[in-house]
């Protein structure tokens, strides 16, 4: 593994200049952490065409030198598993034992969380994931621009946290954005193996946070835990444990990382609702389904079956809609095709 990616460029410059790198303050928003300190604050997104917002941020500036790892959660403010996991993780990290810096944004879509609106920011009805954002756009675009400028550009590694939303049933899994470029694919693959979730779905590009990070030459991964409005201890702990293991893998914390053998998936297909009505799932996340098999059905409001939802391909059910609400065009699930593990 290339050393240059282990040591962030900013710190390398400071080392060359002969300055004690670990003594530098790290500032994100209103949080200024001296070396060996953990500080809470907010990234302020001023009012523009619509209301302003404050995104909570935790900066843990390790006593020793090392890379900058940013952890970003809550772009969907009702994917509770990771929103609960990141503050818990923050409490477990001792700055004295840390090499490098951890920047934690536990909740970037505050309005979605407070108003319990799934999938989008109720202030402007947009998703909070279209990087690099716009400084003069609506709230979601301004929030994204602030994260891009103040966090992503300063990071060496980024983990984006999601989960099953209020209406989605999942078991924890990770996304691997495959660029077909080295060494970055190897680095992100090894981060995912260190994280240790037992299903990994390969994807290519898109406007997501991890692919934005990767386009800047920085390793980025996406992990998902929690589902359907819950923040179950098992899901929360999978995210806390996985993140800690990535930090060990990056030599930011002492300790070794267990080797895992996840299920690798690729080319996921989206199941869509073709009718308005009541959705009944008949398969659970992680079920192996064969092409043409029924994974759910829809009745009208009179109780009569009007549609069967079948698997378009053979593969593994990554997630399935967990609520009765369905309208035409709604996503009802993903089916991922089994793939060979990438050669190590």
């Amino acid at each position, binding site marked *: 593994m290339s050393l240059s990616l282990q040591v962030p460029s900013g710190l390398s410059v400071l080392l060359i200049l002969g300055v004690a790198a670990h003594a530098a303050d790290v500032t994100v928003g209103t949080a200024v952490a001296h070396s060996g300190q953990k500080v809470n604050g907010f990234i302020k997104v001023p009012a523009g065409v619509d209301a302003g917002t404050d995104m909570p941020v935790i900066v843990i500036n390790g006593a020793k030198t090392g890379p900058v790892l940013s952890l970003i959660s809550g772009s969907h403010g009702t994917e509770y598993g990771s*929103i609960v996991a990141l503050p818990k993780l923050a409490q477990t990290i001792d700055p004295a034992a840390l090499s490098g810096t951890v920047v934690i944004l536990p909740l970037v879509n505050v309005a979605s969380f407070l108003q319990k609106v*799934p999938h989008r920011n109720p202030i402007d009805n947009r998703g909070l994931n279209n990087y690099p954002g716009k400084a003069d756009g609506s709230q979601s675009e301004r929030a994204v621009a602030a994260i891009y400028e103040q966090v992503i550009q300063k990071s060496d590694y980024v983990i984006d946290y999601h989960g099953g939303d209020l209406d989605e049933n999942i078991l924890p899994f990770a996304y691997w954005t495959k660029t077909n470029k080295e060494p970055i694919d190897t680095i992100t693959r090894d981060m995912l193996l260190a994280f240790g979730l037992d299903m990994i779905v390969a994807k290519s590009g898109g406007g997501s946070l991890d692919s934005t990070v990767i386009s800047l030459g920085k390793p980025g991964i996406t992990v998902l835990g929690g589902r359907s409005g819950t923040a179950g201890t098992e899901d929360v702990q999978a995210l806390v444990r996985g993140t800690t293991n990535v930090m060990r893998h990056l030599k930011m914390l002492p300790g070794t990382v267990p080797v895992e053998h996840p299920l690798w998936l690729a080319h996921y297909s989206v199941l869509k609702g073709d009718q308005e009505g009541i959705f009944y799932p008949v398969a659970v996340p992680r079920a192996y389904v064969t092409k043409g098999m029924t994974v759910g059905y829809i009745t009208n409001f009179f109780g009569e079956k009007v549609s069967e939802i079948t698997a378009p391909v053979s593969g593994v059910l990554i997630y399935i809609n967990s*609520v009765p609400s369905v309208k035409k065009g709604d996503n009802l699930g993903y089916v991922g095709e089994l793939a060979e593990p990438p050669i190590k």
Partner: protein
Amino acid sequence: MTLLSKRIVKVTMSCGLLAGLAGAADITVGTATAKTGTKATGYIEVPAGVDAATSLPAIVINGANAGPTLAVIAGAHGTEYASIVALAQLATQVRPSELSGTLIILPLLNVASYLQKVVHVNPVDHKGVGGYPGKVDGTQSERIAYAVYHQVIEKCDHLIDYHGGDIDEDLHPYSYWTNTGKPELDKISRDMVFAFGLKMIIIKEARGRGLDNTALGLGKASITVEAGHAGTTEAADIGVLIDGTMNVMRYLKMLHGPITSSLQHPLWISKLTIAKSEQDGIFFPSVVPEAYVHQGMSVGYITDYFGNKIADVTAPVTGVITLVCSVPTMKKGDNVVYIGEIGNDPSTSSAAR
């Protein structure tokens, strides 16, 4: 095959029997017109006004035999899923040939809330669907209430309003019974909650403009029932709603057979107190529905977004938890828990028996 042919014979017989009876009248709700001994489905059309129109699904089951009209209504909160699903399933289970009287089923009043997965309110006008008798020239929620009042509440003899824990609420099933002070009315509605069979009954005052109290105000014995929680549609919750409804229909002599619920000594709740949050943050409950708590005891706590505990939420009174916030979202003024104070069976203190 045997079953099917029996059913055909029954239908034919009842049609013949009813040819000259009062029960032979058609029943129309919205676009659904059911002849005697048949089931019809359709919609109550709420035309566009100051905002968009909506269509409320309606099922009319016009029994082969004469009897009362029972209206069962769900989905004023469109994401209280268990009751919406239960009523749609109930519609397929009640056979017109075996029914005396008429069952009117409205499984989903707040269609926009359901389709858009918006909790508690109608996203079209940001109001709750309620406040009967509604307003013909009001916003969509008010026009829905107006249509339901005139096309269903006025036509029925009894009404059951179905609710449950919303996407952000955890509860165990319970009923509401209104103490109107009118002995005959109170006895029938009390018998209805006993027949329904949910083991906790919350006593309400005859105030407000909800479905049950509006119908009671018109002299129609009516109740409210709650089951389901937090976006789920568990078989047990759907089951108690369907079984309970069938038992109320047996009590009202709309269906044959004995009442299968054996509720003898429910838990009576005399007063509900709501503990509200004074903070924004992440909520962690420490109690579950039906837990008995003492005044001053912690029922949950709130952390800030950095993981630091910033508030303990304590029980304002001693009693039973009837509802707990089920999600981490907590903002100032949100409901954290409902606590019910344990009361006496009203039949021991009033004329309601």
